[in-house]
């Protein structure tokens, strides 16, 4: 009973806020609704008993990724009236994607309804084994190489992003911390003997 109420509340808020992400006029509001969607998805994970995944979703997506989204969207000066102009011209393509997704979802649900899921579907956790432990066991044994590969891909992407934005410019002042710290009094201070009435000229 309580679970059903929780599910319907979380699910409906998730769907409504997902709709608000695309329909909100203000881009910052869009991102805030996106965060609400993530949050409700995390709640759904908790209902499924996957509290570790829920926390990861909050930490990674809400705590880091969405902050960067918000960061960028706040600083961009987007003219939304102009952007909304060609909204309808994307309709055929968007509609096509939507129909394909709907078809796939129907296919999956009907396949599971009629012939059941695959036989090695996850069973309930044995007593005393936590979520995190279970995921860790699978991730670092069966899927070790894929896991490391994913990490490598992210690493390369990060280096790529840095390389793309790094540019060397001449003639600008740069700070070198070791130089600043290693500076002695002799290099930093120069004593001048100023005669009265003459100045340093």
């Amino acid at each position: 009973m309580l679970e059903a109420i929780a599910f319907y509340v979380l699910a409906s808020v998730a769907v409504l806020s997902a709709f608000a992400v695309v329909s909100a006029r203000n881009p910052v509001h869009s991102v805030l609704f996106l965060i609400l969607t993530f949050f409700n998805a995390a709640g759904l994970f908790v209902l499924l008993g996957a509290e570790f995944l829920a926390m990861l979703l909050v930490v990674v997506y809400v705590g880091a990724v969405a902050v960067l989204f918000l960061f960028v969207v706040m600083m961009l000066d987007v003219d939304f009236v102009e952007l909304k102009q060609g909204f309808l011209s994307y309709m055929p393509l968007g509609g096509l994607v939507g129909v394909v997704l709907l078809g796939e979802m129907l296919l999956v649900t009907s396949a599971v309804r009629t012939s059941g899921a695959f036989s090695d579907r996850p069973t309930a956790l044995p007593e005393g084994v936590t979520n995190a432990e279970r995921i860790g066991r699978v991730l670092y044994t069966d899927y070790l190489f894929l896991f490391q590969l994913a990490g490598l891909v992210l690493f390369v992407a990060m280096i790529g992003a840095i390389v793309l934005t790094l540019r060397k410019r001449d003639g600008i002042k740069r700070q070198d911390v070791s130089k600043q710290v290693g500076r002695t009094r002799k290099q930093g201070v120069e004593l001048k003997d100023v005669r009265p009435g003459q100045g340093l000229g």
Partner: protein
Amino acid sequence: MGPLIAEFGPVWGFWAGVGQILLIMIMLLLSLAFLLLFDRKVWAAVQLRKGPNVVGPFGLFQSFADFLKFVLKEIVIPAGANKTVFILAPLITFTLAFAAWAVIPIAPGWVIANLNVGILYLFAISSLGVYGIIMGGWASNSKYPFLGGLRSAAQMVSYEVSIGFILITVLVLVGSLNITDIVENQRGSILRWHAFAWPTVFVMFPMLVMFFISALAETNRPPFDLPEAESELVAGYQVEYSSTPYLLFMIGEYLNITLMCAMINILFLGGWHLPWGPIESLGLPDWATPIAGFAVFYAKLWVMFFMFAMVKAIVPRYRYDQLMRIGWKIFLPTSLVAVAVAAGYVAYFGRPAIAAVAGG
């Protein structure tokens, strides 16, 4: 709340749970009133001033007078502000600051929710804290708050990374994400506390220091209070806030500092255990042990808060690029190495012996 419902039935169990939550909230708010005063008194003492000393004996009621002042004033919302987000931001900060306390065990057995992923929950909630600030900064529709909000977002996201790695070193040594397990893993004298346990002290004591500094940055405390650096940004993201919304920001901020003190306490300094032995070694009856445990926990909390206050009083503010440099170029690699060392230690020598006793 689950065990309470099992014990008292659905209706009374629910209300018992609500009562527990209210009790902890009232305890926190009252502590906060005196912690705020303590902060100001410490700061004053360092500067050879007297600090607040007018309201009540020794100025003890100063915080309550401030509270009334904030509540009774008018809320000013700037004309160009985004009203909903403007009001939402302090509420988010305030709510999240309290939400994090749901998993903090303040004495043996005294915890609202004993989650299996407690430490991750804490991490998740504290990583959400940035939204209140960034939303407040943006919704004010003014340059200083906006710059303050952006600075703060960058700062908090950066230091979360090192805090995360430091948490992992502790988790690897304990082998559990449950906060009560983490405290019970330190059962025993001061030599069992994570910060001082032999031989991991070489890794964990530096981690304690780094966690403390990262906590300063994460809570926007001086010397890392750049989001509200008054010499550059007036008051940062709080410029446009007045009366109650400002109060909510303030309470949220101080509650986060208190939470960080509690986290240092739980992760490194043995939680509710005494320096010379576990809390049970006092030989108190069963009903009194949690009370004594709470007293120990609370005393350690105040000591940690004293450290925070002293840092605020004596350390000059950092420059922003220096702050970022410390976070990304020093803390991140160091804590990453520490994770590797701690994991290597556990892999080759097993967990420190006590884990077998407390884990069960």
